[in-house]
């Protein structure tokens, strides 16, 4: 009888929803500058990798605060913008080419039935309509297979405390897959903003001096399950 009780307890434990035993979702960021030179007009590539989560699928990210080194800025020679609404309805082709800031790709995962379904999506970053006189950014995500659909991430410029300068707060909408199934999650995202040596196109302006220890980058993420994670890193000073 005691064995029966123990067995039942163990059985009940193993039958608990896996969410209770899920690893928390965490993220890492890897920034890189090209060219990696002080004062240069450069391209900044930011790669974010999410891990953990229920059954190995990270929780969907809802809000991201990205913090950049003090003195780093973006140069936008011609002010053309594109609205979130236009991106949603017409895609990247519906926006002026001059509003495009960069692009990249992301990998999505979503659970449906017994399967984890993956999809690669193309990212296109645009200058959005200003919000409260502050620059705004839009990132269009367009996937084709297995699901032909698009999503738009919106971002606003914010100020951060030293050693950081400006930051971007991005909002990621729920990425629906199949009704009654969990929303999709971003597993990896790599976005390049600006062009190398660009003077007439958007570019990241690398600070003219580099703090000891390198350029600091940081990010905080809020997930759909209410959890949070934070990460930081540095980019080595140009030699």
């Amino acid at each position: 009888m005691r064995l029966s009780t123990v067995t039942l307890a163990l059985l009940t434990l193993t039958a608990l929803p896996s969410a209770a035993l899920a690893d928390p979702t965490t993220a890492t960021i890897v920034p890189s500058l090209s060219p990696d030179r002080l004062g240069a007009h450069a391209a900044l590539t930011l790669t974010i990798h999410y891990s953990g989560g229920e059954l190995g699928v990270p929780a969907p990210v809802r809000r991201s605060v990205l913090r950049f080194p003090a003195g780093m800025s973006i140069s936008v020679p011609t002010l053309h913008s594109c609205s979130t609404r236009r991106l949603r309805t017409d895609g990247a082709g519906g926006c002026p080419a001059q509003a495009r800031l960069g692009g990249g790709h992301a990998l999505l995962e979503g659970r449906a039935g017994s399967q984890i379904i993956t999809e690669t999506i193309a990212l296109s970053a645009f200058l959005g309509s200003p919000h409260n006189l502050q620059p705004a950014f839009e990132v269009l995500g367009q996937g084709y297979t297995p699901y032909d659909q698009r999503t738009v991430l919106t971002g606003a410029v914010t100020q951060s405390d030293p050693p950081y300068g400006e930051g971007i707060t991005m909002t990621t909408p729920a990425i629906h897959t199949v009704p009654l199934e969990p929303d999709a999650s971003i597993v990896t995202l790599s976005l390049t903003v600006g062009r190398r040596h660009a003077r007439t196109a958007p570019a990241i302006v690398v600070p003219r001096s580099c703090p000891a220890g390198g350029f600091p980058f940081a990010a905080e993420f809020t997930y759909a399950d209410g959890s949070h994670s934070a990460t930081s890193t540095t980019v080595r000073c140009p030699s």
Partner: protein
Amino acid sequence: MRFYHLSAWMHSTVFYHTITHHLVTRTLIGGLLATATVASSTQSIALHARFTPDRLGVPTNLSATGQLASADGGIPSPVTKVAFYTPAGARIDLRGAGTCTAVKLERVGPSACPANSRAGFGGGVGLFQLAGETIREQFTVDLFLAPREAGHLALLAYVRATNPASIELVLTAREIKAPKPYGLGFSVEVPLIPTIPGASDASVESAFITLGSPNVAYYETVHGKRALQRLRGLISPKTCPPGGFPFQSAFDFADGTTTTANALIPCPRS
């Protein structure tokens, strides 16, 4: 003998999860569900259904959830058969769709099926009883199109549960003639599903199913060029009758009772 059962079961199920039943080709556990609660003498079912997107005459998903309960407060009797009827005017556009076979699902699993044979997803919570205790277990459902049988549509359902009992079933839902005012009809026979030694067969506490493939696309090489092909799948009716879309679903249970639910999905607002 009892000790042996419990011991073996604890060893194999709790720690190693090795109890796997042979795959059986049968019919789908779930069923299309509607917005009603109907009770038989011993079982009741709360049903909800909707179209997504909720528009007339477009590729859509038909999603349904069902909550089963026993009138005596115990676990519901195992489901042995489900029949369901979709609204008149709903149709399935199979252009570009592939098919999968029960043999592939049984031998390899869903990964063996082509992406364009996928017809939907689902899942739910199953129940079984052991030594007077009720054990709950989540299960998943993957739906695939099967080759037509005598000209009739057929769907394959890969039903999977892993913990604490490991169960894999391939079930077949066959198209049946639907009475007015319904359109498509499907019938699903469900075998009794053993769980673990000494425990009751599996019952269903809740289930959800989504049928359809709007937004599903895949690449195909046509005349040497890679082209994106979009599936249409389930198409919602072009008109909505006054009062909404009618649904009917009938569940047979192992205790010999049948529960029939009739319900309506509200017409789209625009």
